[in-house]
């Protein structure tokens, strides 16, 4: 059924259609609307049977999901930013224990300085935790990915993060198609746990493993996660056959075949990028887009194949590894090893800074002219940065960096274009 609704509500309705049995959450912006809607649906009996557990922290939220999943219930939680970091220890445990929990990440920056707006720093910080990570481009895909995520998680007995851009998607009202319960039921079978805390057949879950077996356990976890590279396209195909629309998969391409310059990105910025690429292609520019839908496991082969003919690759990243550079670009360079394709990292949209078509167009024109640096920051106010750096050199005690930066930007009346 087509509905004009908020992204969070759409995700909540998708989760409800997946018949979760235990939902637990701790409020954090911009995730809150999802779990508010779910708590209401549990209270009204629209999701039944289901337990909604209000917990005292994100650490407890995922811990409750761990217990519920191990005891045979389909478990769901959602978080963002500091919340994901606060539950980090349990994040690794959920995957190490092989528990198919689905968690929505309403992507948000990480402090300090505190910032509630969108970027991908949170899920990228936990990218090596053993969870599968799917990134949604729009609200329809966010909804569709949740339905696929439960099936994927339970098929592999591994947890899945569905990442959607905070505010940009979670708080946006868009038209989405919400499938019927019967359709979802035909796609997603009931949860059958691989391991179960059952008094009639007792097992010990989470035994201590020493040096004699730990490497093998980790190897097997790696091997199991890599199975997702074959399974995700299968599930996406099955989804499109069942629901009549495309969603998910490992990657998706947009005019990238034969294009000299390919823009790589994940998440909601892809829509803006495609608009700018359309305009440039209308002028005859050889430019295309590669969307990464699955970030963990990273689809090395699919990416390599898709980019093999490109002359240059530009990665738009909404996260940044301090002291290192682009996170997605690192994986990309691995995928392109030996192909000698220049790969440029553009860090954009940190902490909710808008990524505008004007800025992207200027960026892409620079790239097409072969004048893009290997690492750059979209719309960076270089003047303000230089003034703060000078201040730090000249004055022994500069105040907190962010305050100084805001002052410098205000003083020069520099507008961010």
């Amino acid at each position: 059924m087509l509905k004009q609704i908020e992204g969070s509500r759409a995700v909540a309705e998708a989760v409800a259609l997946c018949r979760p049995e235990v939902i637990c959450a701790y409020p954090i912006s911009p995730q809150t609307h999802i779990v508010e809607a779910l708590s209401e649906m549990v209270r009204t009996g629209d999701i039944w049977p289901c337990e909604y557990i209000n917990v005292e922290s994100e650490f407890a939220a995922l811990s409750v999901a761990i217990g519920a999943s191990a005891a045979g219930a389909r478990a769901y939680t959602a978080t963002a930013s500091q919340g994901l970091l606060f539950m980090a220890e349990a994040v690794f445990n959920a995957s190490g224990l092989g528990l198919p929990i689905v968690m929505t990440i309403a992507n948000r920056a990480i402090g300090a300085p505190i910032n509630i707006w969108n970027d991908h720093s949170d899920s990228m910080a936990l990218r090596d935790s053993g969870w599968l990570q799917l990134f949604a481009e729009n609200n329809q895909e966010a909804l569709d990915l949740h339905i696929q995520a439960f099936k994927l998680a339970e098929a592999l007995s591994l947890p899945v993060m569905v990442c959607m851009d905070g505010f940009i998607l979670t708080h946006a009202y868009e038209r989405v198609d919400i499938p019927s319960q019967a359709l979802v039921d035909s796609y997603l079978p009931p949860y059958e746990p691989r391991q179960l805390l059952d008094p009639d057949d007792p097992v010990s879950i989470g035994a201590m493993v020493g040096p004699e077996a730990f490497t093998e356990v980790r190897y097997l976890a790696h091997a199991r996660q890599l199975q997702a590279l074959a399974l995700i396209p299968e599930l996406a195909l099955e989804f499109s056959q069942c629901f009549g629309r495309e969603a998910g998969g490992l990657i998706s391409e947009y005019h990238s075949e034969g294009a000299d310059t390919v823009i790589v990105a994940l998440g909601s910025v892809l829509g803006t990028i495609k608009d700018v690429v359309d305009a440039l292609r209308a002028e005859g520019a050889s430019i295309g887009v590669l969307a990464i839908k699955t970030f963990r496991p990273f689809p090395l082969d699919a990416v390599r194949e898709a980019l093999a003919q490109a002359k240059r690759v530009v990665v738009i990243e909404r996260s940044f590894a301090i002291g290192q550079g682009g996170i997605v670009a690192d994986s990309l360079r691995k995928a392109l090893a030996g192909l000698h394709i220049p790969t440029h990292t553009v860090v954009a949209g940190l902490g909710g800074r808008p990524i505008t078509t004007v800025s992207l167009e200027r960026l892409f024109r620079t790239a097409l002219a072969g004048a893009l640096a290997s690492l750059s920051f979209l719309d960076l106010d270089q003047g303000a940065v230089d003034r703060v750096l000078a201040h730090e050199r000249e004055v022994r005690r500069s105040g907190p960096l962010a305050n100084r930066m805001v002052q410098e930007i205000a003083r020069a009346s520099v507008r961010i274009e």
Partner: protein
Amino acid sequence: MSFQPVRFYQTGTYTVGNRLLDEAQRTVQATVARANSLTSGHRACQGCGEALGARYAMDAAMHATDRQMVVVNATGCLEVFSTPYPETSWQVPWMHSLFGNAPAVATGVAAALRVKGRRNVRVIAQGGDGGTTDIGFGCLSGMFERNDDVLYICYDNEAYMNTGVQRSSATPAAARTATTPAMGPAPGNEFGQGKFLPEIAMAHRIPYVATASVADLRDLEAKVEEATHLRGARYIHVLVPCPLGWGAASSDTIRLARLATESGLFPIFEARFGDVSEARPIRRPVPVDEFLRLQKRFAHLFEPTIDTERIAVIQAQADRNIKRYALLP
């Protein structure tokens, strides 16, 4: 599932067989056919109070629930010595996740069992004093506040024994640990109240809070059984001396637990919905010295000279317990 036959030798002895009691009053431990949660052959130290306390608590719970139970375990000695992969000593469904989240994991298990309509399966979480009073305290308080249907059992050996005897918030005043060394003008743990978690649990007004020790296993069994028959959040705090961490003889574990209660340092009581309902009177009062002298962690109170001032403060703490819980008639 076949259970390993019981191979302990106490059956029929005065200690646990209760053979002086009427048949009806004897516990499950008095028979060869008793429940057996934790099999022999685990790797606990000789004289480990926690292994003893955990086995009796879990056996009693197995008996009371007719084996319809799930156990969640915090990181600690109990987890490490009982589950070195690929071996496990547990005959009940058992799960370890993390040091600080056992109460929350147990909440999740309980929620799943409710959804699945398995109301007869009971959930028990257990951990040491570090996992309970320190790192897991937030999750435990949350579990209490929600009144989740979980019985939490804390085995208190008064320090982080698994990591090599460091101070926890349950470490008593003046005790020497690796992080409160017997050095300087006030050697050992600084003086203070510490966290006495049973009273904090009571402040949550949960249905049942009790203390017990391995000196009276029948009492521990009875309290576990009582707690198993109740619904909602329940808490049992068991004093389990650690020969290694306390610097005591392996053969003194029970004796030390008894001296802790008979001196008033560790009161034995039950509380319902926040109010003390029953306290176990001291049978043979002893001064705290008798308890302290047997342990190397308090050796600096007696050598080279007797630190009467600090011992008096410990005695005053014991006297306050005796008064508060009316432990002497």
